[in-house]
């Protein structure tokens, strides 16, 4: 009997020890916290668009998209280009065997060109197979951007940090920067993004992603003007290689798509920040998404296996009014 009390006390002590919380591992925030400065947060007042729908993309894996002059949408991925009508319904398909698509562009006459890593395909415009495959740009080539004007095709080659100029028949007309050009004119493409957008008259805009810059060139390659916005704030182009993609919008504005801080924004023709189309919270993952603007002014974002549609208008129903910029 005299052992009962000590035994009970010992059992109670052991139970208390067992119930004590163990040494919890330190939480990340307690060790070396990384503060991103809230760069992924966007005030609601800065968001000018709302998502109004999405289309499933009938190519795998989707890589790039372009809007045709008649309003249809071409989306390239794998060894195929699908052409969708303005409601997202698949109308035609162009397929080939070889390298996977990395870029697609539509000329003003509706002719499609497809970048496939190291060479361009003249995809024509009719369903079926491409008309021709042009010569390879070299083993180091990595076509990451493509644009077509009335007479030229501009190829953004991130691997060799060059913009190639071809005619519609695939004849090489030149390159930018030209051989022997000062190193200051070189494009900086640390990652495989190098978007280009052409105007019908042959002038074109090209991103210089490593410098967070957009450059406007004449058809002969002369630099006409440029704007640059390096920085981490909402109005700037962040990271080492942005914009990852861009599209020309009405009034000379730009719809930019960034990577790492995944967001889609609108900048004026001088680069001034206007508004946010889709904030980082709208995306899963931090990769950049190809963008395009259709004839109705909708912003099309190729996000995974879907094209997401964003139209002007806030969630509260108001639409931002803005004076037209001087052309």
């Amino acid at each position: 009997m005299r052992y009962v009390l000590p035994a009970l006390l010992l059992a109670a002590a052991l139970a208390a020890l067992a119930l004590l919380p163990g040494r919890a591992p330190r939480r990340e925030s307690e060790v070396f916290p990384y503060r991103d400065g809230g760069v992924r947060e966007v005030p609601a007042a800065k968001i000018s668009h709302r998502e109004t729908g999405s289309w499933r993309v009938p190519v795998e894996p989707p890589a790039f998209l372009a809007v045709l002059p008649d309003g249809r949408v071409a989306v390239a991925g794998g060894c195929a280009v699908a052409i969708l009508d303005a409601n997202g319904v698949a109308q035609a398909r162009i397929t080939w065997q070889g390298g996977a698509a990395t870029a697609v562009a539509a000329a003003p006459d509706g002719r499609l060109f497809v970048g496939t890593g190291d060479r361009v395909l003249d995809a024509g415009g009719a369903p079926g197979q491409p008309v021709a495959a042009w010569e390879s740009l070299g083993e180091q080539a990595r076509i990451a951007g493509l644009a077509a004007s009335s007479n030229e095709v501009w190829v953004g080659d991130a691997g060799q940090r060059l913009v190639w100029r071809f005619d519609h028949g695939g004849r090489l007309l030149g390159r930018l920067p030209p051989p022997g050009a000062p190193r200051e004119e070189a494009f900086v493409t640390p990652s495989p993004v190098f978007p280009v957008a052409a105007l019908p008259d042959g002038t074109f805009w090209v991103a210089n992603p490593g410098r967070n810059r957009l450059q406007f060139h004449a058809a002969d390659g002369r630099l006409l003007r440029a704007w640059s916005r390096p920085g981490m704030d909402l109005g700037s182009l962040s990271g080492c290689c942005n914009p990852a993609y861009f599209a020309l919008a009405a009034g000379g504005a730009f719809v930019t798509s960034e990577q790492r801080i995944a967001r889609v924004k609108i900048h004026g023709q001088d680069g001034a920040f206007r508004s946010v189309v889709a904030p980082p919270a709208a995306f899963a993952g931090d990769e950049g998404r190809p963008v395009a603007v259709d004839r109705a002014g909708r912003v099309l974002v190729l996000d995974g296996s879907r094209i997401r549609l964003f139209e002007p208008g806030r969630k509260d129903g108001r639409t931002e009014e803005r004076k037209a910029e001087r052309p």
Partner: protein
Amino acid sequence: MSAEESVNAAITRRGLLAWLARGAAAAGVAALAARAAHRPSAADRQVWQIDPAKCTQCGRCATACVLQPSAVKCVHAFAMCGYCKLCFGFFQSGVDAARLDESAEKQLCPTDAIRRVFIEPPYFEYTIDESRCIGCSLCVKGCGSFGNGSLFLQIRHDRCVNCNDCRIAAQCPSGAIARVPAATPYILKDAERNPVPANRPAKWSV
């Protein structure tokens, strides 16, 4: 003299000692050979290493290692680096891009372990001073969040004591630390992760 007496006379003290010495030497050689045969080769031995693909930059590598500073260091895959002027592994997030200097309050590394050297416009090269690096992974987090992810953590085997039960591995929340063959002691970010890979020509038919 009988035959038995002649045999006993042949076993002298000197002969016996020589026989014992030869026996001991032979036994020693045999023991060494046996030990060498059972010693694990470099291919068999294993060491601890971090898989960069699994690492979540939690910061525990800096605090859990039995060594202080930790045997975990930041390493740099130069082939992946953008040589950015505004490097997010070097600068604090939110720094004013128009006023980039190397003042301490703008740097991300708590121990000033990253060296920044101007190459040519707009390129800067970043190298790690391992004597200062404590493996906190702040630069890895910044580079991976906003850049190409060329900075990553590795256990440096010139200082790791290869504990039987690695303290960091026990606390790693993502299971990123495991034993690897000592012959290939590092898990580097390879050319396939290079952001601008060379494309191999494909066979075409259109």
